[in-house]
């Protein structure tokens, strides 16, 4: 990336929009989380009683 105003503009443009895409991807992964509940269920009371 050239150490000039052009480089700063390019870096900003690429970084901002790429991070929007990446974090949207994390959002998509989180949207799938409810499917985990079909695989298993955790007994929270039992976990709390067995704490260290």
């Amino acid at each position, binding site marked *: 990336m050239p150490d000039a105003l052009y480089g700063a503009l390019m*870096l900003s443009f690429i970084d901002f929009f790429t991070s929007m895409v990446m974090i949207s991807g*994390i959002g*998509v992964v989180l949207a799938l*989380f409810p499917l985990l509940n079909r695989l298993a269920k955790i007994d929270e009371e039992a976990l709390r009683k067995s*704490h*260290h």
Partner: protein
Amino acid sequence: MIEQVLSFLGALMDQTGLAHLWWGNVVMIAIGCAMIYLAIAKGYEPLLLVGIGFSCIISNVPGSDLTQPGGLFHYAYEGVQLLVVPPLIFFGVGAMTDFAPMIANPRLVILGAAAHLGIFVALIGAKLLGFTLKEAGAIGIIGGADGPMAIFMTVKLAPHLLPQISVAAYSYMALMPLIQPPVMKLLTTPAERKIRMKQSRQVTRLEKIAFPIVIGIIVNLFFPPVAPLITMLMLGNLFREVLVVNRLARTAANDLMNVIIIVLTVAIGSTMAADKFLTIDTIEIVVLGLVAFLFGTGSGVVGAKILNLFLKEKINPLLGSAGIASVPIAARVSHNVALQYDKENFLIYHAMGPNLAGVFGTAISGAIMLALLGVH
């Protein structure tokens, strides 16, 4: 004989710090005192300002060995420079954070990136002022409002600017309740501020345990430059959520966090020597930091309004400014501004979603920046 005595006294005086004191030291000592005053009398971030203020005072007393190699403050700074301290801060933060608001509202996660336009406005501004691209990147990351990430990026990109950037980052985080509301009100209508959010779904224990594991894998796969920070955040969070290692989670969230805060604050303050701090660069960095926060707040709110164009069920645009990563300050600001217009509109839980996403947004922006600048 009198000449000999005077010569001896002169030599003795030269060995004291007093002989090397200059007006810059006096100014910085006054700044350190002001920080301690703000912490005690006004209650502004006392956990940070007391330590930073005191070590700022000591580092500007010439002759102090604490800031020299061999001194305790020097080794505290080594812990920051070697990137041992920032990941441990995130470890403690993870152990005290409930990510359920973020898991329950995945559509708000994008606000954690939308609110980071301020990083790039400050970066471009810094480049226009003559900083190098790496220095501009380090300055820009102040706009992410994430102290450990700002320190991490600055150590990688521009370690000589660490005192100014860390002080600016932590100071502006404390001032967010003053900085953000005018921008939020300028960009929203009273009707928009009164939008109520539907209650979020309940997040199960399984999801809360899966979250740190999944995110830990994603971050190490896709964003290795910032993996140390986010991995430790996730480890702390895993300790909190599994419910079987409560004593470890409590240690991480309390005692360890307290030790690390002490180390961090004396390290930051010890770098505030007058000859390095009282420069035009410092003034420019402080101004750019403010610009970053203002634009970040604005872009978050505008991002939320753009999101509303695609949603049937509108979100309150005040949530957008919470995408700045300062957890939980930015979320609290969104909640308090909403309350001013509707005393029964409690936004805090929803605002924590984009607020927590902002931590990842800053990390992702930082990782991409390091990759584009060729820094490992």
